[in-house]
């Protein structure tokens, strides 16, 4: 259990919506999959999220957003990580994100978007398959 590499994941809620039930369920599932999950809570700016990702040296950033501001906030996170030279971090998103917006987000560096009803095991498997340790 010790002395091996652990997948470290930051789970954050960018923006102003106050619903973190989904983020907590995902955080719990990742924990149960053996990952170290840093949960930063509600109402985070992209700057706060990027800085926490740097300090915690995470491999994955999971962003949960229900407010509709995803097109403004999510690309900002990937841009800031890139600026810090941390573009090897896998950034994924979940929440209420219309399908039409997904291609734009992917072009901006969001690796995958998980909508409502996604089995938790899909998220775990996706991370394990795509994370760069």
């Amino acid at each position, binding site marked *: 259990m010790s002395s*091996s590499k*652990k997948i470290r994941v930051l789970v954050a809620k960018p923006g102003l919506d106050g619903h973190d039930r989904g983020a907590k369920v995902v*955080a719990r599932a990742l*924990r*149960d999959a053996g990952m*170290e999950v840093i*949960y930063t*809570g509600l109402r985070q700016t992209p700057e706060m999220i990027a800085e*926490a990702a740097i300090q915690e*040296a995470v491999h994955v950033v999971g962003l949960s957003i229900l407010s509709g501001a995803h097109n403004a906030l999510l690309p900002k996170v990937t841009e800031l990580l890139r600026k810090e030279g941390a573009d090897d971090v896998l950034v994924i998103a979940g929440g209420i994100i219309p399908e039409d917006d997904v291609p734009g987000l992917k072009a901006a560096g969001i690796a995958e978007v998980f909508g409502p009803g996604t089995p938790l095991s899909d998220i775990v498997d996706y991370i394990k398959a795509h994370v760069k340790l």
Partner: protein
Amino acid sequence: MAATELVEGVLQGDRRSLARLISLIENEDPSVGYALSQLYRHTGRAHIVGVTGPPGSGKSTLVDRLTTEYRRRNKTVGIVCVDPSSPFTGGALLGDRIRMQGHALDKDVFVRSMGTRGHLGGLARATSDTVRAMDAFGKDIVVVETVGAGQSEVEVIDLAHTILVIDVPAAGDDIQAIKAGIMEIADIFVVNKSDLPGADKKAAEINAMLDTDPRERAWRPPVMMTNARGGEGIAALVDKIVEHRKYLEDSGLLAQKGLQRSRDELRTIMSYKLTRELMEKLEGRPEYEQALRKIAERDDDPYSVAERLIAEFLVDYGRSVKENGERKRR
């Protein structure tokens, strides 16, 4: 990336280098030993403050407020928060940072969350070296927040100059206050959530316990009241921490603690290194497996085998150290 390449960055105050070095420390990367030896002479300047207490007593919130107060006094702050790893999956939910995100954009505050990864005692195995890295990085104050501690998670005593033990109102009676363990390690007691009923009673119980403490100490741990969420009592608490530091310096205890720490640390490093190198040599080797079988079949006994294997190892080890000159590997 090897730890050696990060040393320069850490010394120059690059946050990413520090973050990556901490990960290598946590993963017990073989390159870490040399990096830490390079950093060592840049350490010893930070004041290390340990914060411990039961789960939910407000440790993270208190650390957040202490940080605010230290920043007001122009001190830079490093924080290591430890939370438990699951004994079943090895996973962890590290939630201390939630309370500290107010400092996320302050470049003079560095927060790192850490799972215990199977280590007992209230800290992770990597905590001590992480504190040292933050010290070398140039933080004036390094705060170590332990896991929610029950009664005997007292390892922080080996690490911190000043230990705050947090308690809350209405948690146990006066018998809890006189139990051995965590109640004995405090340099400062903090009764947090002082707005709740029973806070004065809790403080009185701790003081009564201190009245009958047989240890003759020039420093009697003060009992401070805080309401961390409301920000009450924080400045007075920081004043006390500063006072304790001064007491340690003036009484010569700081130097004494430093020597004790060196003694403990050298012993830990030596026994860890010896065990690790010994086992690396032995495990999987056919002679070793055969010796194990013999012991199991009562053909040989573990005491003699241990002595023989250690003797052989030490001879080999002495030879290889001589051959390699200065070995640059942990």
